[in-house]
């Protein structure tokens, strides 16, 4: 602030000085660092290309192998369904956690404690063997008659076990993210909505959650990317998602390294797509927040707009404001 005021003083002084053409400071350290990085990058790239053990030809053969592609689809299915369960469950748990009823909020806390406190790999295997614990599942009145009788062994397939384990575990983490989002919304928003005659549910759905989304989205993007990779753990219960499919293939042809590279490339590709999606969702929920809506990279390319231009205008505005505050608006 003090700096700005000084700058204003100088601007207000009689003769406005001309364009600055100073000799830039030299940064020898930066050049040395850049040189080291460049040498390292070139040598790594060289080894990746020339080392025959990478077997890039084999990577190319298997990258679009139909088994691998099927594994990719299963991985995506697991990720989407588990995250859907996780987000829905997370919202319910977060609202429960904020309930004034101690039993309800306590139940939510217990759930979070349990599912966060045990490794997800253990949970996956546990769900896979759930039939050993509950051979049959009955739906009906507790301690009363049962209406639907299901055989756990046929109901809980590897896929169902994986979804249950990943989804229920995720709900515990998501609930904390959602709760943080809800708490971040100013209480005045709730006051205003209530004063207008909106019920608690309407207020939550229409006013609080949409604003909480701004805080919820970035860590949720993180969770989704993390989930995409965590699905590889279900290889443990022999579910043919991307990683287990690759394992099955290299168990036969011994091309371990190239297949691991294929798997890694696919994971990298999918997480990259997710990151882009996250950017656009964040932009949507950020509406009304910043004074100027930031352009998407594509818009920026099309308009050929330099960000520098915007900065310049902002600085001018700040100087104008400082001038007004000092009551000297006449000097322009």
């Amino acid at each position: 602030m003090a700096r700005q005021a000084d700058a204003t003083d100088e601007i207000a002084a009689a003769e406005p000085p001309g364009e600055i053409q100073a000799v830039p400071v030299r940064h020898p350290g930066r050049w040395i660092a850049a040189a080291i990085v460049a040498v390292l990058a070139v040598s790594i790239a060289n080894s990746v290309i020339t080392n025959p053990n990478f077997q890039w030809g084999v990577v190319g053969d298997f990258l679009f192998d139909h088994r691998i592609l099927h594994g990719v689809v299963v991985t995506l299915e697991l990720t989407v369904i588990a995250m859907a369960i996780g987000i829905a469950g997370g919202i319910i748990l977060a609202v429960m956690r904020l309930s004034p009823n101690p039993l309800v909020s306590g139940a939510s806390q217990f759930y979070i404690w349990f599912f966060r406190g045990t490794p997800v790999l253990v949970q996956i295997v546990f769900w896979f063997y759930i039939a050993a614990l509950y051979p049959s599942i009955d739906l009906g009145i507790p301690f009363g008659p049962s209406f639907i009788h299901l055989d756990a062994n046929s109901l809980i397939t590897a896929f169902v076990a994986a979804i249950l384990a990943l989804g229920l575990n995720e709900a515990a983490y998501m609930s904390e993210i959602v709760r943080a989002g809800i708490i971040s919304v100013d209480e005045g928003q709730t006051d205003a909505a209530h004063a207008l005659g909106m019920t608690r549910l309407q207020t939550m759905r229409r006013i609080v959650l949409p604003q909480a989304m701004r805080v919820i989205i970035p860590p949720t993007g993180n969770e989704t990317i993390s989930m995409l990779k965590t699905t590889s753990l279900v290889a443990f219960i022999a579910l043919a998602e991307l990683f287990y499919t690759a394992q099955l293939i290299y168990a036969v042809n011994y091309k371990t390294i190239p297949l691991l590279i294929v798997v890694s490339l696919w994971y990298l590709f999918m997480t990259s797509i997710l990151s882009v999606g996250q950017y656009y969702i964040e932009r949507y929920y950020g509406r009304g927040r910043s004074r100027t809506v930031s352009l998407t990279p594509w818009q920026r390319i099309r308009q050929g707009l330099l960000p520098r231009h915007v900065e310049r205008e902002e600085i001018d505005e700040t100087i104008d404001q400082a001038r007004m505050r000092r009551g000297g608006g006449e000097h322009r």
Partner: protein
Amino acid sequence: MSEPMVKAEGVRKRFGRLEVLKGISLEAGTGEVTCLLGPSGSGKSTFLRCINHLENINAGRLWVDGNLVGYRQAGNKLYELREAEIARGRAQIGMVFQSFNLFPHKTAIENVIEAPVQVKRMNKNEAIGRGREQLGRVGLDDKVDEYPARLSGGQQQRVAIARALAMDPKVMLFDEVTSALDPELVQEVLDVMRELAGEGMTMVVVTHEMGFARDVADEVVLMDDGVIVEQGPPAEVLDNPREERTKRFLGLVLEH
């Protein structure tokens, strides 16, 4: 005085062990402007929030338009109202806040139509038409599609007033609505309120704007430390205060 729109009898409110309202009794007449004055911490805002049940009271009774606030009385017994009933009561009471509390993720018009559409189940197109009128009434025809972040404080507060008016309230509560505004923006908000008062809106106004209270108020109520010190027409209370505490408060305020 006609039938009171807001009536309070011995209203008490505690936050934990701190008693903020220590028996408030007053009547705000229909079509009248009642200004609540007093030093900060005197309980004015809390009392205002009790009127639409944003705070529940610990003792006494509060009525709005003849209906008990927050409870239903059958014989000598009080029954707490259901959430939906409380919401229905609040829908008839407009409130404007010191910090505007506009919904930042909605444009001006979306802010205004939110409650008519969601609470009154009004047709959206009808709500938009009426919402435009409300925004025009507060002089913001040209800001209909702006987000709150792009509006000045005074404009935001006028949107907040339009938002409250869109519900056709029986009474409007104003909670220090100009306190968060830059001095040059205060007037535009006060002008809207003045106009509203001229149209016969019942208003309960917590304010530090002595000029507004003097010009517009039918009744001025001076509160201090959770009790009403003095009340009456502005000419009496502001110009010829009887109580020592009123004189001291006015002296402090008018020094500026």
